[in-house]
């Protein structure tokens, strides 16, 4: 009888352990293995693959919808959306230094060589080096800026403008460089005889 009770008790303990284990396993399985982050506005980090649509639990304050009944609200559409990077600029090289991909240094080395050639009035040689720099690091805004300058020096305004546009995208987080790009674009447009657009770019530059 006592033995039977003991067996029954130990069976109960085993069952309880099993239930606890299942519960723990279930909890672990339901916990997201990847912290979900919403990229701040105008940063370059698109949601990391292969995560599905991020199931956001708490939207950031800026996007918080009003509590209570659903109401129509004007869109949150601010200048910041259009002209990012208004925060104070860090000196070049310090910006996101830790996030630089390994090819960045190689690419910058080529850019420096390109700049030397450009300064020496050899745009043809500079173009080759800037192109190689782009090939190595597609996000090197300096290389595109260099290409824009070199093509302008060679008298190809349209080409220069295309490369300047690329630099403009890549320097969104660097107001100092962005200003340089805007001014270059203003000059290129002026060369192309588009005074109105040129002025617009100058104004953009002056706002930075």
């Amino acid at each position, binding site marked *: 009888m006592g033995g039977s009770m003991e067996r029954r008790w130990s069976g109960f303990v085993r069952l309880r352990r099993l239930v606890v284990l299942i519960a723990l396993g279930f909890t672990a399985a339901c916990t997201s293995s990847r912290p979900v982050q*919403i990229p701040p506005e105008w940063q370059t980090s*698109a949601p990391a*693959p292969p995560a599905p649509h991020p199931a956001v639990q708490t939207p950031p304050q800026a996007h918080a919808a009003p509590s209570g009944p659903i109401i129509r609200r004007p869109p949150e559409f601010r200048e910041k959306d259009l002209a990012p990077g208004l925060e104070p600029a860090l000196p070049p090289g310090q910006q996101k230094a830790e996030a630089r991909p390994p*090819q960045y240094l190689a690419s910058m080395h080529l850019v420096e060589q390109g700049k030397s050639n450009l300064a020496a009035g050899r745009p043809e040689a500079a173009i080759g080096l800037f192109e190689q720099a782009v090939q190595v690091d597609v996000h090197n805004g300096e290389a595109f800026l260099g290409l824009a300058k070199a093509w302008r020096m060679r008298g190809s305004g349209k080409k220069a403008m295309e490369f300047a546009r690329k630099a403009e995208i890549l320097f969104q987080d660097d107001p100092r460089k962005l200003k340089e790009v805007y001014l270059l674009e203003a000059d290129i447009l002026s060369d192309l005889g588009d005074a109105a657009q040129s002025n617009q770019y100058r104004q953009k530059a002056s706002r930075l």
Partner: protein
Amino acid sequence: MNQFSVRRPKKNRLWLKISVVFVLLMSLFWASYFFYLYSEIKARFESRRWSVPARVFSAPVLLYPGQVLSVSQLGQIFQERRYQEAVREPLRAGEYKASRDRMTVYLREFKFPGHTLASRRIHFVFQQNRLARIQSGDADLVFLEIEPLEIARLFGPERESRSLINIEQVPRHLIDSVTAIEDHRFYEHRGVDWVGISRALWMDLRARRVVQGGSTITQQLVKNYFLEPERSVKRKLLEASMAVIIEYMYEKDEILEMYMNEIYLGQRGSVSIHGMGEAARYYFGRNVEDLSLAESATLAGMIRAPNAYSPYSSARASQDRRNTVLRRMLELGKIDSEEYERARLDPLRVLRTTPPVSAASYFVDYVKHQLHELYETEALESEGLNIYTTLHPEMAIAAELAVREGLEEIERTRSDKGGSGLDAALQVVLIAVHPKTGAVLALVGGRDYGESSFNRALYAHRQPGSAIKPFVYLSALDKFTPVSRIPDERTVHVVNGQPWSPRNYDDRYRGEVSLREAVEESVNCATVHVALDIGLDNVIRTLRNLGIQSPLEPLPSLALGAFEVTPIELAGAYAALGNDGQKPYLLSLKEVVAEKGEIIERRNIDMVSVTSPAKAFLVTSLLQGVVDRGTGKSIRRMGIDFHCAAKTGTTNDYRDSWFVGYMTDLLVLVWVGYDDNRSTHLTGAQGAARIWARFVNQVRPWINPQPFRIPPGVVHRIVCRESGALANTYCREKSLEFFLADNVIQEYCTIHGKN
């Protein structure tokens, strides 16, 4: 007596006159003849001396610390460039040695127009399959440029392979080897060596057979360059005469340089090896200046009978002949006994790897096609042009491997194997493009160039199917947003008086889908609805802007890719999406450089804005969804774990299987199908995507996929996944969505609320 004595001088004078006239005539004849020979020689030597085929090179490869690269992969790179694994220190140019996590390479010099890759010793350090350091001496290098790979030669009908060298490049011991064994009095005679001829005659008479020739190097040059290989007194006289004239016209070193460039030194299949420069590369994988004494003696020894003394086919004979040359050098005091012994004991090591002259055949055809538009065939085959291309050799090799293995895998797993034979073979196209520069990095135009050289990448007109949809949605972004609700139901359209009703791939009709879902799941009905809503002319305009030149008709089926494009056109159009809306001009030919180094053609990166960066980004974001959740998600299971955007494409009756995907620095298009348009029984994901993933995994050391940059003009909002409106606190499932700044939704979710 007196009369007699008076008449005699008259007779003498006559003979004298006749003799004088004869001598004058003979002198005039010989002078004219020599002048004729002189003019002939001058004309030949002052024009192009040799037919040198154009050489086609890949792009150089750049290595940098931090690159994902293993020791074996780097070893492979050097082997492809015909470097030899060293057997002893010190390393010589063209050699490398590797350990578990280190590699030392002695680079050969390589001259580009404008800059030279110096010959130097480089030390590589690896950590966990990454290149950790590149060192030259004590200095750490930020990057290292590796010489390009020669991928083709454009031979003329004579099929002579020759790399011209300058006498200043030639090491002293090669000059000494050649002169010692062929003409040791070369610097003493004036074209014809009478001492040598007498000695040779004496030797021949003693042996009662021809054992020694008396031809000087100059005579050999004349024989090889000007004369037919007949054995006659007349030819010998002519040879001697011309040799004398050449000696009069040129310096000794000039003559030796011509000889070293002219001399025949063996055979590679149907191609003959001419000159020491080419032979040094072919037999030893070295530039001529890097040849050792033993290697120089081997090449010099081959002059007499190149194939009999070939180090490939007759190693023993070649080594004996080399030692004969070395002994002769020792006898003549050109080397000392220590040098002799060292060189004599040197094992005969020749390069065993085949020169990669047939790599990337479809790409080479593509380049040739462009070259033939620029230059005459004769110029390409004989003027020694150096043609630099954008081909990434490692990617090109990976592409061919991925295509071969991928097709094997598809055919193994597919129920219908499609029969056998060329007509039945499943065909393939793979195009790899750098989206930011337009550089074509690899191009495969079929499964086997040997069987069919038809370049499908350029010339196959195939229906793109759903692979065209991104451009339909690109055209619609002014009106629609990624959360716009689109009808997904069967609708009958009247096309040319006939009813036409598109069907979804899975025959499932959801009633309504978001634009994002329509792209991710490749929903046909929704796409046709969008195309008709914005107007088919708008779609056509977009396609034209993106470089699609094939005929397009404003029919509803246009939205589903029911028209023909070439794979290269489609790759170009996608490149605009991967390049912030700027369509790069595809670039395969970079530079054409003349023999003397001047650049005669240069092509640069060029692009034109065809849509805004914001729209291009939005489509990219939609295509990222295809990979993360949609029809292309199978590649995530194949090791593609980084940021990438892609679209599948399948046409009616599975005739075409497409997969076009891009990262920040690589765009790859793959097509799989039959030439005769039979069904492949493969969707884009089942066919092309497999090859795509296989290729991208293999080229991982050469790409650095980064997050796609969000350009100006794009904003993001948190939306309710159920309603597609801006999310409120009560929405259970929310997601981040991107919008054009001037086309943002403003409505909040009305489905979820307090109640």
